[in-house]
């Protein structure tokens, strides 16, 4: 998002054009010594290299890219055979891409013919691909921690509570475009703290222990109803009347009502009969205030209130409630008095109530605890001890915890683990607390255990890069469910893993198809599409509302919903992924339909709408994408072009140079021109031209949409010129033709999207050694009519998804 943010400052000196363009490449992993046949293949390869590549490299490239300090830190002059090329791949890996896409040589240098470009580029690609396929490396995923979305979903699906504790966790950092990358998901002490407190809170929400049930409900003065008013001393009744609250008695039984109250003094002292505040029978003092506590509108007990407004006391009575339900509890003031002839401080009796509380008796608490158990509690606490013996406690604890830990850890649990969990429950028993309290403690242990927080795939030889193995059934189930649901396996999937049936590709695929149809696959829209298409940014874009007054939060939400529904529709109905490029339908509500100028959509619920005309269709013409690729005040053809190259075609332009040259003197004429003209001036600088030709060409074709994605045909009174050209010569005018060009590159799109999906599914960056798998995967999607499930199938049956190897960095780290 930071590159090319302002078109005025972007320049691309030649030196920087290729520097840092590709993802960091690990050194080739040389495994076993190549067998004789491989050596032979390499020899053939070398022949091709020397015949088809080397002469052209010498002719067109080494002029600048000569060791040791070649242009852009790319050196192509030293290697004379493909075997030596394989040893210094970082430079060579980039050659085919830039040559085929005509990004190199620069325009002011001699150009190879198209045939030469193809020969050089394709030969290199196939040579590298062959070499990589031979390595046949499944790669290694660094152990993944649950990210925020996964944590929330996992808690929801494990316990049946929707508490979303991870909303309060710090952000997960993003790597390779996603926030589920094992290497990047670090665990700070702050997060550890959050895990502990989230576990405690979640356990208390999911499981109800008698100890946690509040016995007392207090209604402060502020919530009392009646003819009085709030004063500094509490709820004030200045005349006879009743203050009341409504309370829902959960069950019949005995309750205590406690009124904390006091009254101001009226009248002269008299001999009082009864009990004073200190309990003595006879005392001189002013007449007390009279109060009655009322239930169902009738007094159940009267009190003489001797306490003053500032030293209020509790007045209690019990009430036998026959029926559960809402009832009125009243506090009546019965002897208001006022006489202005009396001295100050003795002339006005007012009544003050600090609070009314209702306390349930222990029997009531026990019966409600049983009756009001939430779904989560019933789901987890499937057994309780039948008597008070230790053995019975242990038996019940095991019955509860063994299946719970099995699901939470997504693998079989050992006897020892269950025993240690039972040990945690016994803390409660030692404290004479309830069984449920004990289960809460064990659940806390489960929720902060590394087996829960991480997704370990432990190996027998973890630091041996030559060690390979198939994932076991539980690891496979876990990868699958976090891929498709961002959550743990459900009972069906876990059951199949328990029976070791998931190794069969047919079973695995059937499960994947079932899971894609499940509503939980909405997580793919939120977490995969939200990041692949960068839809999450819609939540934080800040269009300039002085220039775009129609932008508001309902529109913002509608934009994002449209894109997510569109994505989910393709997932759940298993449609073609090419619909992302263009479609004849979308999802609209009234807000968005107005924004698009589509008539006939009323109401705020979303529905599928068939599109007429050529203005909309596919993600490129969605307001969400168009807005998130704009600056707050205007469109950015550069950002839009970059977005297409990066996300749809998988060919991100290289980053701009570290020190951007100045393009114009202050006060120069460039500021006054149209955006198109300014970009042209920009591209007239050869240092900028190569990359910007690609980005600008695409972005300018989308100028029919303003910075919040509204259709327009003129900009600041001038008609729009929406023509564009790609470096490969493809010409187009406007969004519809741009989409046609993109559709003609459907293989490239499919491969790019598969690469993104694979990255997301694996939680690691796609390495060079995966590229060979990727080619096969993308081809299989094409043969299956580009269906989304075909892409998922390609990912989950691929070697990187189903296998792993030891860590190549060994003891170094």
């Amino acid at each position, binding site marked *: 998002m930071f590159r090319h943010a302002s078109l005025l400052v972007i320049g691309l000196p030649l030196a920087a054009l290729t520097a*840092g363009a590709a993802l960091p490449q690990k050194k080739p992993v040389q495994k076993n010594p190549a067998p004789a046949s491989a050596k032979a293949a390499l020899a053939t390869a070398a022949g091709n290299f020397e015949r088809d590549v080397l002469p052209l490299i010498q002719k067109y490239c080494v002029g600048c890219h000569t060791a040791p300090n070649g242009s852009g830190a790319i050196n192509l002059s030293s290697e004379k055979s493909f075997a030596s090329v394989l040893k210094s791949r970082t430079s060579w890996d980039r050659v085919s891409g830039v040559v085929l896409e005509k990004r190199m040589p620069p325009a002011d240098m001699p150009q190879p013919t198209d045939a030469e470009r193809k020969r050089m580029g394709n030969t290199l690609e196939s040579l590298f691909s062959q070499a990589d396929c031979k390595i046949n490396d499944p790669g290694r995923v660094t152990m993944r921690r649950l990210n925020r979305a996964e944590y929330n979903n996992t808690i929801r699906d494990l316990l049946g509570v929707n508490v979303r504790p991870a909303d309060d966790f710090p952000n997960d950092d*993003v790597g390779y475009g996603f926030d589920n990358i094992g290497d990047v998901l670090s*665990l700070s002490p702050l997060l550890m703290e959050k895990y502990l407190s989230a576990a405690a809170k979640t356990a208390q929400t999911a499981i109800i222990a008698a100890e946690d049930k509040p016995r007392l409900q207090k209604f402060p003065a502020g919530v009392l109803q009646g003819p009085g008013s709030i004063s500094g001393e509490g709820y004030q009744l200045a005349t006879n009347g009743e203050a009341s609250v409504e309370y829902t008695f959960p069950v019949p039984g005995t309750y205590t009502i406690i009124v904390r109250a006091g009254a101001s003094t009226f009248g002269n002292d008299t001999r009082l009969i009864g009990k004073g505040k200190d309990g003595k029978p006879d005392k001189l003092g002013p007449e007390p205030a009279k109060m009655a506590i009322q239930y169902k509108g009738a007094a159940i007990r009267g009190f003489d209130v001797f306490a003053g407004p500032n030293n209020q006391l509790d007045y209690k009575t019990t009430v036998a409630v026959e029926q559960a339900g809402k009832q009125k509890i009243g506090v009546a003031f019965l002897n208001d008095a006022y006489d202005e002839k009396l001295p100050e401080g003795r002339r006005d009796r007012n009544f003050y109530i600090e609070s009314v509380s209702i306390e349930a008796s222990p029997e009531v608490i026990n019966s409600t605890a049983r009756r009001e158990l939430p779904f989560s509690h019933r789901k987890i606490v499937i057994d309780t001890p039948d008597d008070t013996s230790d053995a019975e406690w242990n038996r019940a604890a095991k019955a509860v915890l063994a299946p719970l830990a099995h699901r939470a850890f997504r693998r079989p649990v050992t006897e020892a683990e269950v025993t240690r969990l039972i040990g945690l429950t016994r803390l409660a028993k030692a404290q004479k607390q309830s069984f449920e309290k004990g289960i809460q403690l064990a659940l806390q*242990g489960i929720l902060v255990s*590394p087996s829960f927080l991480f997704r370990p795939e432990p190996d027998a030889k973890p630091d041996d890069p030559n060690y390979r193995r198939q994932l076991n059934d539980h690891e496979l189930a876990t990868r699958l469910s976090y891929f498709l649901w961002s959550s743990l396996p459900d009972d069906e999937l876990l059951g199949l893993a328990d029976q070791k049936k998931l190794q069969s590709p047919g079973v695995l695929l059937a499960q994947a198809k079932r899971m894609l149809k499940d509503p939980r696959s909405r997580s793919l829209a939120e977490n995969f599409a*939200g990041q692949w298409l960068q839809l*999450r940014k819609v939540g934080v874009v800040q269009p300039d509302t002085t220039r775009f007054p129609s932008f508001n939060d309902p529109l913002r939400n509608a934009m994002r919903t449209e894109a997510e529904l569109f994505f989910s529709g393709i997932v759940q109905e298993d449609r073609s992924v090419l619909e992302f490029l263009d479609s004849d339908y979308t999802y609209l509500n009234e807000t968005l339909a107005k924004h698009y100028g589509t008539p006939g959509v009323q109401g705020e619920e979303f529905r599928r709408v068939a599109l007429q005309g050529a203005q909309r269709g596919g993600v490129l013409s969605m307001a969400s994408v168009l807005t998130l690729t704009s600056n707050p005040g205007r469109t950015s053809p550069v950002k839009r072009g970059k977005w297409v190259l990066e996300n749809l075609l998988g060919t991100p332009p*290289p*980053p701009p140079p570290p020190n951007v040259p100045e393009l114009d003197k202050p006060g120069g004429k460039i500021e006054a021109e149209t955006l198109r003209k300014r970009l042209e001036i920009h591209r007239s600088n050869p240092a900028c031209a190569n990359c910007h030709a690609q980005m600008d060409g695409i972005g300018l074709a989308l100028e029919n949409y303003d910075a919040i994605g509204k259709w327009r045909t003129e900009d600041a009174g001038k008609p729009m010129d929406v023509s564009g050209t790609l470096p490969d010569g493809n010409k187009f005018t406007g969004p519809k033709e741009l989409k046609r060009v993109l559709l003609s590159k459907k293989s490239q799109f499919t491969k790019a999207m598969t690469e993104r999906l694979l990255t997301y599914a694996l939680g690691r*960056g796609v390495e060079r050694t995966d590229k060979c798998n990727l080619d096969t995967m993308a081809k299989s999607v094409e043969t299956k009519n580009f269906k989304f499930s075909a892409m998922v199938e390609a990912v989950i049956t691929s070697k990187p998804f189903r296998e792993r190897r030891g860590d190549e960095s060994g003891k170094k780290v």
Partner: protein
Amino acid sequence: MKNANMTRRTLLRGAGVALALPYLEAVAFAQTGKSEGEAPLRMAFLFVPNGINMAHWTPATEGALGALPHALEPLAGMKDHFNVLTGLTQNWAFAHGDGGGDHARSAAAWLTGCKPVKTSGANIKVGLSADQLAAAKRGALTRFPSLEIGCERGGLAGDCDSSYSCAYSNTISWRTENSPVAKEVDPRLVFERLFGGEDPNESAEARDQRKLNNKSILDFVLEDAKSLQGRLGAHDRHKIDEYFTGIREIERRMTFLEKAGKETGVSGEALKARMSGGMPDYPDHVRLLGDMMVLAFQADITRISTFMFANEGSNRAYKQIGINDGHHETSHHGRNPEKLENIKKINRFHVEQLTYILQKMQSIKEGNRTLLDNTMLVYGGGISDGDRHNHDDLPLLIAGGAGGTLKGGQHIKYKNGTPMTNLLITMLDRFGVPGESLGDSTGKVQQLF
């Protein structure tokens, strides 16, 4: 000193916040001329992104501060309490063959002085940061070794800057060369963490029981983690190490609480009231977090803090001051006068927030000094001009008295190219962490102390 503090701890009510002040001693000692009970030194690093309009930042002359440049004007009333430092440089924020990505590099190098490894994910690595080095050496003295806060969560999607992982742009604190320290952005959560603590109505018995339970749970998970360890590869073990560090840190905090006998902070109604409902507006957000940092210093909950006013490369639109374009976008001004004007406004706006924080520190008395006197606070960024993306002649100032040893009121000009880490190790030395080198440091800076 600690025990004496405990026995004579007194609750002071003020501004609706009841806090146990450990420095009552300091008052007493100051009056008797003893220095033993002096309040400790605090250290903070406040970061702003995207470079500065240097024409309105750099004072015209070297030496005593005269009329302040526009961006620094809000600080006019406290000229004696800060120095403007120019000429310092982050060598490793420059490309050195790594191409674009100046934003990510400059934040990553700011307190580390190291070159970040250019990666989207695998093998994130830069270096230990100055604050975390101090926390590792001196942090055990307080309940939190350090506090990391900021106004913006991490990146939401896409890469953050030219194939550099977002961790680089969003983090200035690095506990190890490959462990970025997550920052807290929600004032409510910062508050709960620092001051929420324990339920005052909980009985001692219940509290002991709860601690025993927590201890047992931690023992349980540690065993679980250990059983995994042997079957994990190098990269995985790094993750489990982070897990162990987290658990140890929590255990340390638990024993620290036991040692202290009582939680320091009690309540903060005044602050709480300002936290009702959702995320606050930007200036309120900065100020609330600033207040909490100050309160945490005051109550000696921590002595070290980093605070990112915004993430590096942030494209926030400062609508409060009438700027509807994004900050990052604007920072690439191309010498456009309107954009330069807007950058100047943003710079000044940030300095206004800084001024608020410094004034708050100044208002808190500690013996015959103030909290500000007992603090060393660096404010600034890792990019000088946002358009050129250069990392020399950085916009930096150092505020506070460093325990009465730092004189203010100067514009100190270092030879351009002097590593910023030289300033950092000079501060570390003052903080009681002597003899360290950091990243590209070559030696202590002069003229400061």
